């Protein structure tokens, strides 16, 4: 006998309600503690860093509107990840689909925008952005549905390809998307009719409310419609789906295309909102990857994604301002994202199992 006790995992037959909210909260806290230790080990002040992040991300009026503004695209990428994840389809190329959404949106804003009034131009940009995101996932979706090709690797590879495509359009001289007469390569601004004005001098745009409504609508779709029922059957039991005559291939295509469209929509909100042009800066922001963390933290619940999206956005906004105001490296924010996800995963175990240590008893008697 090596150890005097064994760790036993007992499957919980019923998960206590309080654990459902408690576990994600605890994982955020645990990640912050771990991050704090890391900060201190690297010679930064954890309490100062965190209090700055908190006030810059949530507690100041400037901070909270910035947070809500940024959450618009993050909720979209969270929805993108969750929509596919709920059917065990791991679209992790939301990042690339955001680029394409931006590209499609920029094209619509440049080509169609000047000829359309704002009420039509803005929705057009958003829809074409969504369509471009869906287009970018079409090949992974098709080969996944037909041949079973792993969508994990294919969507990811396409993100690298999307980055090259985006760079190409911004950097190539005389590119349609490139601002003319400027030496430094940058995108050309879309027509004014295709841009929204931020709310009352903040960095928050009306698209935030559209995205929140979208999340709630998807929540309803999954819980109440035949489409949502089908998704649940396929994700839980592909054989039962086959048995009941559910067309899994078609549903796989639909779910992946919608997932891509959601990320593309998010990319397009940046065109009608903050950026107003194709901007290679998006390549460094990792909004698509953040969506994976947001979805996992919300356990693929679309309503909860609104909350986890805003929470994350606050961490990002606070982290970004740190970079400006203090010497703390910006990357602590990304690291915290990863750490939160790791802790959330570990926490899942406590939600699903009752974990206890028992002594291995010696021979009784």
């Amino acid at each position, binding site marked *: 006998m090596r150890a005097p006790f064994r760790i036993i995992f007992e499957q919980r037959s019923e998960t206590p309600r309080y654990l459902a909210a408690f576990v994600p909260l605890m994982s955020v806290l645990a990640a912050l503690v771990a991050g704090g230790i890391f900060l201190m080990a690297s010679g930064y002040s954890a309490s100062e860093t965190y209090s700055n992040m908190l006030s810059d991300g949530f507690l100041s009026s400037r901070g909270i509107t910035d947070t809500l503004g940024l959450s618009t695209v993050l909720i979209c990428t969270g929805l993108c990840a969750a929509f596919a994840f709920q059917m065990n389809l791991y679209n992790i190329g939301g990042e690339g689909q955001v680029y394409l959404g931006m590209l499609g949106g920029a094209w619509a804003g440049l080509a169609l925008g000047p000829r359309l009034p704002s009420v039509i131009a803005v929705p057009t940009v958003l829809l074409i952005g969504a369509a471009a995101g869906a287009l970018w996932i079409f090949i992974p979706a098709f080969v996944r549905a037909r041949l079973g*090709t792993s969508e994990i690797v294919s969507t990811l*590879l*396409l993100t690298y*390809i999307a980055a090259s495509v985006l760079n190409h359009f911004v950097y190539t001289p005389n590119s349609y998307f490139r601002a003319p007469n400027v030496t430094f390569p940058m995108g050309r601004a879309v027509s004014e009719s295709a841009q929204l004005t931020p709310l009352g001098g903040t960095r928050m745009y009306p698209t935030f409310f559209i995205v929140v409504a979208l999340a709630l609508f998807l929540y309803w779709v999954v819980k109440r419609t035949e489409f949502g029922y089908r998704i649940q059957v396929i994700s839980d039991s592909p054989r039962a789906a086959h048995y009941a005559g559910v067309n899994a291939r078609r549903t796989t295509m639909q779910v992946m295309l919608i997932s891509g469209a959601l990320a593309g929509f998010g990319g397009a909100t940046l065109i009608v909102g903050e950026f107003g042009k194709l901007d290679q800066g998006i390549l460094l922001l990792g909004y698509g990857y953040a969506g994976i963390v947001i979805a996992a933290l919300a356990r693929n619940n679309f309503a909860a994604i609104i909350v986890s999206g805003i929470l994350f956005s606050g961490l990002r906004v606070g982290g970004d301002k740190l970079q400006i105001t203090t010497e703390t490296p910006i990357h602590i*924010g990304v*690291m915290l994202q990863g750490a939160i996800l790791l802790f959330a995963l570990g926490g899942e175990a406590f939600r699903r199992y009752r974990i206890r240590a028992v002594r291995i008893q010696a021979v009784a008697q």
Partner: protein
Amino acid sequence: MNSNIWVLTSADSIAIATTLILAALGALFTERSGVLNLGIEGILLTSAISSFLAADSSGSIWLGLVVGSLVGSLLAGIHAVLSVTLRANQIVSGLALVIFGTGLANFLGKPAEGKTVTTIIEPLTFGPLSDIPVIGPVLFEHDIITYFAFALSIGSAWYLFRTRPGLELRATGDDPATVDAQGLSVAGIRIRYTLFGGLLVGLGGSWLMLAQSAAWHQAATTNGIGWIALALVVFAGWHPVRLIFGALLFGFSLQLPFTLQAEQITFIPSAFTQMLPYLATLIALIAFSRPGSKNLRGAPKALGNPFVRDER
């Protein structure tokens, strides 16, 4: 066209293949035990910067390689605890590792920006062999890690198919319940090979950093090599020797953009040559899938499934 350039390209393709082989072998050992570790890219990046910092502060490139490998194992340990001990979703855990590793590497890399590696790993010399035109520079002017990576592939095949622990490893990936019934510890085997896999990936990342790129370019240091390595394992049908061919092919596609640039071939847009390795991987990935691809030759049957002993 300068034929010398193509000799160099071939030599460099073999060099790049070194990292691919090490990373893919790491993934292969991990997957053969039934654990899917998608975090390769994050591990490569973190071990790359760790090896840089260690080599930079100690002046020893070998210490850099050791530290980088151990860091790789450490990160893989996080995945092992989450996916094997706590039975978390292996896919999400691997992705979390990519995000965490990228952030951590960039955080650690702050002081490394603008510095370069000062010492290099000396290539081995094979006397007259290295002087043979074309073949000499292509095959006989690499450093010891490159030869080690190729030898390790062949050694791994022997280990997997001709030894007792290899037998137990393959059984664990295929049918953990059977291994458990034999009184072997499924969790023990899985954790061990996940750590070992991380060690190899870490070595690959360290070598990439210290022998190839020489300076820290943040995420562009690895630039998706971890993902290509994962796809490589699929093409190779989870067989270590077949990995070599795929690694050479992808090594070439990764090297090509630089060659074309050096040759000043501009009629192909640089965006296209940059995406070539990823495009080639994608096409190969699709070409190698068949309907019902779960039965892919060599794929461990229990890959990605946490093992839970069947207690009622």
